[in-house]
């Protein structure tokens, strides 16, 4: 497959198979049977709530709008712009019906608004929007016949190169630079243990770091930093007889060092999931670990023959 760069976006030939996303590879890594139901057979799950998905989109949409709008505004003007954008984003994306109570809906709105306030006051939001060169950009890469793609939330020009930022509610389950995190990647590849969340995170980092190098904003020799930024990393509430108010602070974690030191392992994990998907191999491996760790929260459990078979064994 050939890749070209056009106006900051990477594009591919239309007759090539669609590149896979880190999300899909992550699903396959968690449970190949779940991948089959969700993506191969396209079984829809009517009960899935959009509550937190839409909240994330409202937060992303706000930051994206501010990044694309800001030119030479003052700090205060950017903050006002962000809060106005948040109000619009929230109203257009969120629905009270996704929440069990009106109180929860209102509180969640306050919580998300507090995240925006924190990001643009005590957090690095002002620097991020002023340095932003790309938002919601599709990044593509290819290595050894494996084609990947994904959408980066924000790409910021720094003194030494580029910083890719992926916004999350929390960074708790994402890749880190600790020795233990690296060990988990190796354990999963060797089949010694089961760490699908951190593997998915590592696949995303790989896709974006490689993909950014195929865009027009990248120049050879640039340092590429990958940051997970948890907009709701720390949440608390302030008690008051007038009603509780959420307190929020964000937290950013740079993780590119783990990619560079574990590149071979991470691409081994990518290759395995990629080949499984391409070859339609959906027989679960590490089934005991999947059953113990993933089945309880799987939307397809009630129709999954593997899970049901466990319940009727003699």
């Amino acid at each position, binding site marked *: 497959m050939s890749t070209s760069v056009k106006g900051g976006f990477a594009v591919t030939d239309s007759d090539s198979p669609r590149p896979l996303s880190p999300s899909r590879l992550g699903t396959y890594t968690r449970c190949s049977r779940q991948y089959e139901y969700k993506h191969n057979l396209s079984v829809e799950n009517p009960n899935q709530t959009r509550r937190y998905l839409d909240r994330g989109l409202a937060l992303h949409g706000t930051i994206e709008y501010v990044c694309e709008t800001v030119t030479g505004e003052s700090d205060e003007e950017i903050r006002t712009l962000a809060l106005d954008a948040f109000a619009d984003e929230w109203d257009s994306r969120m629905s009270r019906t996704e*929440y*069990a*109570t*009106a*109180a*929860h809906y*209102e*509180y*969640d709105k306050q919580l998300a608004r507090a995240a925006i306030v924190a990001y643009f006051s005590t957090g690095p939001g002002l620097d991020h929007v002023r340095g932003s060169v790309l938002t919601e950009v599709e990044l593509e890469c290819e290595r050894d016949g494996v084609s990947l793609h994904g959408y980066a939330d924000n790409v910021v020009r720094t003194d030494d190169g580029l910083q890719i930022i992926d916004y999350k509610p929390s960074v708790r389950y994402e890749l880190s630079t600790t020795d233990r995190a690296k060990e988990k990647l190796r354990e999963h590849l060797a089949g010694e243990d089961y760490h699908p969340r951190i593997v998915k995170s590592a696949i995303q980092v790989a896709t974006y770091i490689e993909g950014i190098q195929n865009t027009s904003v990248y120049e050879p020799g640039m340092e590429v930093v990958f940051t997970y930024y948890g907009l709701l990393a720390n949440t608390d*509430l302030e*008690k*008051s*007889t*007038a*009603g*509780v108010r959420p307190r929020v602070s964000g937290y950013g974690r740079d993780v590119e060092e783990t990619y560079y030191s574990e590149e071979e392992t991470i691409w081994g994990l990518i290759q395995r999931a990629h080949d499984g998907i391409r070859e339609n191999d959906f027989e679960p491996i590490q089934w005991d670990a999947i059953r113990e760790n993933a089945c309880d929260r799987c939307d397809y459990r009630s129709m999954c023959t593997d899970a049901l078979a466990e319940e009727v064994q003699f």
Partner: protein
Amino acid sequence: MSPPLSEDEPVEEPSPRIPQQRIIESGEYPMRVLAGAGTGKTFTMVRKVEHLIDEHDVSPDRILALTFTNKAADSMREKLNEKLGAPGYDVNAYTYHSICHDILREYAYHAEIDPQFDVVNNADRTALIHEALDEITYRFTSPEVYGPDSHADGAAGSLLKFISTMKSKGISPSTIETFLGDADRLLELEALVDRIVDRANETVRVSWRAPSADRLEEMRDGIADLQQSIANERSALGQAGVERSVATYLRGMEETCTSLAELLETEEASIIDGEHKPAFRLPAYLFGTYSSPPSGIPDSISVTLTGKLRSFVEECQEAADLVAGYTAYEQRLHEASLVDFADLIGATLELLEDPDIRAEIAGQYDYVFCDEFQDTDAVQFELVDQLADDDQLFVVGDDDQAIYEWRGAAVENIGRRLEERYETLSTSQSILG
């Protein structure tokens, strides 16, 4: 090795052991049997019922047997039927809830409830809880319906548990509101805890330096100052409800100060020599100035005095929010002619407050038998007490096995509480022999 039984061969029930037989034949009431799991408590109870019918000509419908689950009630009926034939089915074997259901159906007019009432199901209850959550003014707790890791951790789970606990203890929303008082005061009580910790930091916090006679004397002075500060806080508190409870607790803190000062004096030598050196930091730890226990403090002292008081105040704050949800939930149940499991017993108890009705209902039974009595809660105890009119009560249970404690079961129901209520209670603790 015994030959395997074929499907056609009846399974022969074992004969009672001597201690079991003694209980079965005993005419002593009220009687309590305490024994562990698998010792044949229920077996003994069934045999005793059978004995009353067979040997004492007690009419089966004069016997009331209460169990905890429908399955246990059915099982008891089946066992009696096997032994006694059709009369076995005439024994009134109920769960604590099902007897109340039947009583309320029959006496709905007197209980002032809709005779067509329904028992709320799980789906209805979830919907009612969600509606009730929107009646809360959230001043101390988060309105997030579900927790980040578990549904039970969110506001819905908290309200459900709160209502269940309060109802199992027979505590109404108005009683809670009266106890808690104003929300402003609950915030101030939290500030009071902070002030005590701050004061402890000023008066009894110690540096890294080793204890000496001078430092111990200084510490005793600090404890006296802290004690005086706590006394001042106490004297500013009200004389009722939550403030009274906090005042009682503060008095306990003051007494602890006295004990600590005495300890530092009597054990001075060993504290300075090193054997009891960690005791030098004990006052500061107990009054919340360390985030974790300093080295040498025994694991058994896992909670601090200020930490415990803070937890109490926070629970009161949570209750102050949830009580509005409790009120709304009760209102909606009433409007929809629904009752929940707790209401079945609560409304029956209210009905039994009428002496004529109580005499009529309790008069239907000469004997009351209760299985798994350790799992009853306060209102179930009260129900049994009301129904066992002539004290011809027989209860079995295991005081080491309260599986429903999390939802209000009070293990003292089979212990101290039963002894206090029935002075002539006889007890059997060994039924295996």
